[in-house]
């Protein structure tokens, strides 16, 4: 009996005091995913990554808003959302006291505005995402980044059209340069050797034709 008491004293109290005292938890515990609505840009990376579809986006085309939703009742606390979030807007916390009596309380949402295309006026991407992309591109040097910055608030369809126009313009410019060069060369040859005239002029004509 004495031995048992001694053993008991050595072992101490195994039972935790919770819920009468806070439970000490690991700092990397995977508890409730906490969403920082101000840092989120509604990019939907977490919604794509979430294996249980606990996070999803819903778009309201009339109000031109995109809504980030989470259902903690479906979440499996895997941490994929925090891994995939590029802007650290969602992180699994140490909060574990999640039991509720009404299911609606398991649901959180955040509503974001959608940017309208500056060319066609149709909404196409979350406003905050476009805005953040602009500030990131400001840090990047190079002509590709400059072009991207120019078409940042243009929707993909209009951007394709602008790209095509830009390509056509540069082709036209190159063609015009070639044409100009050919004409100058012809003129130089015509000035230099008038006697050889007829055949050279015909050549110049065909090359100009070909370019056109």
């Amino acid at each position, binding site marked *: 009996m004495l031995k048992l008491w001694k053993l008991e004293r050595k072992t101490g109290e*195994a*039972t*935790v005091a*919770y*819920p009468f005292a806070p*439970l000490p938890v690991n700092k990397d515990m995977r508890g*409730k995913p906490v969403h920082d*609505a*101000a*840092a*989120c*840009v509604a990019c939907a990376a977490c919604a794509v990554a979430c*294996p*249980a*579809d*606990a996070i*999803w986006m*819903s*778009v309201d*085309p009339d109000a031109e808003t995109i809504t980030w939703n989470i*259902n*903690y*009742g*479906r*979440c*499996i*606390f*895997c*941490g994929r959302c*925090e*891994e*995939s979030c590029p*802007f*650290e*807007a969602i992180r699994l916390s140490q*909060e*574990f*006291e*999640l*039991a*509720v*009596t009404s*299911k*609606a*309380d*398991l*649901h*959180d*949402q*955040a*509503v974001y505005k959608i940017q309208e295309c500056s060319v066609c006026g149709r909404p196409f991407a979350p*406003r*905050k995402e476009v*805005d*953040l992309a602009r*500030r*990131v591109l400001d*840090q*990047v*040097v190079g002509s590709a980044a400059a072009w991207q910055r120019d078409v940042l608030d243009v929707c993909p369809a209009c951007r394709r059209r602008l790209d095509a126009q830009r390509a056509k313009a540069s082709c036209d410019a190159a063609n015009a340069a070639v044409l100009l060069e050919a004409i100058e060369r012809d003129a130089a040859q015509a000035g230099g050797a008038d006697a050889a005239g007829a055949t050279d002029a015909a050549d110049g004509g065909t090359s100009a034709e070909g370019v056109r």
Partner: protein
Amino acid sequence: MAEPLDMTERVLPAGLQYQPTPIQLDEKVKAAKAALATSIRRSVYAYRCDLGGCNGCEIEIFGSITPVFDTERFGVKVVPSPRQADVLIYTGAVTRAMRMPGIRAFQAAPDPKIVISYGACGCTGGIFYDNYCVWGGTDKIVPVDVYIPGCPPSPAQTVYGFAVALGLLDQKLHATTDVEKDGEEAPVLHPGVPYRLRVALERTARQMAGYRYGRDLVNEFMDVLEGARYDVMGAVDEFIRRCDDPRRREIFVALRQVVDASVVGDVNDGRR
């Protein structure tokens, strides 16, 4: 375009998943239950009913009756028959095969009784919610009083859930809706570090330590880069020297090499 969405959860189009009609409580039972919630002064007996879970939840339920969490302190006892039960704990996503046993357990337990939906599966169907052979949550077949999310809920979560079910503690979670404010801007993280270097550092850290811990480490490292006013490399070396965990040190050394390479690249070809 998008299918209509339920306010609180994503639901499948009706054609893809059958939606059963849940059992309704009659008024007398509801009144008795309300009385029970305020006047319960004795130990409650819980019956555990697995409707097609993976048994992770069962392990945690048994984890909460072990000496460490010891729910029997509060008189919560797991019993082997629904006929003795005051509380029914439903785990699992309610598979077709287990629907009838679930309903029979509900009918066998004497009224008034408390029904707990346990785990992500019990709450909404969890990761199996869109499976063809599940009904997606306990509340599709019986009326539920308390939802305990988690996959599986830890014993502490279970203890808390029981406290909520017995009216000892209040629930902490409440539905929220955040609306974007005018001119709200998401911050660019670590703006002091050039963009391409930032990407290279993040990539290296994540390759070595995974996404979460890699991000924590690279954040620490970039804080040092941004904090240094003159001698950046000196500050980094000092930081690495002070780091006594060899695993962290190895990653920081690799990150230092990334910075080195980018500085040399800068000198050589004028690119960042």
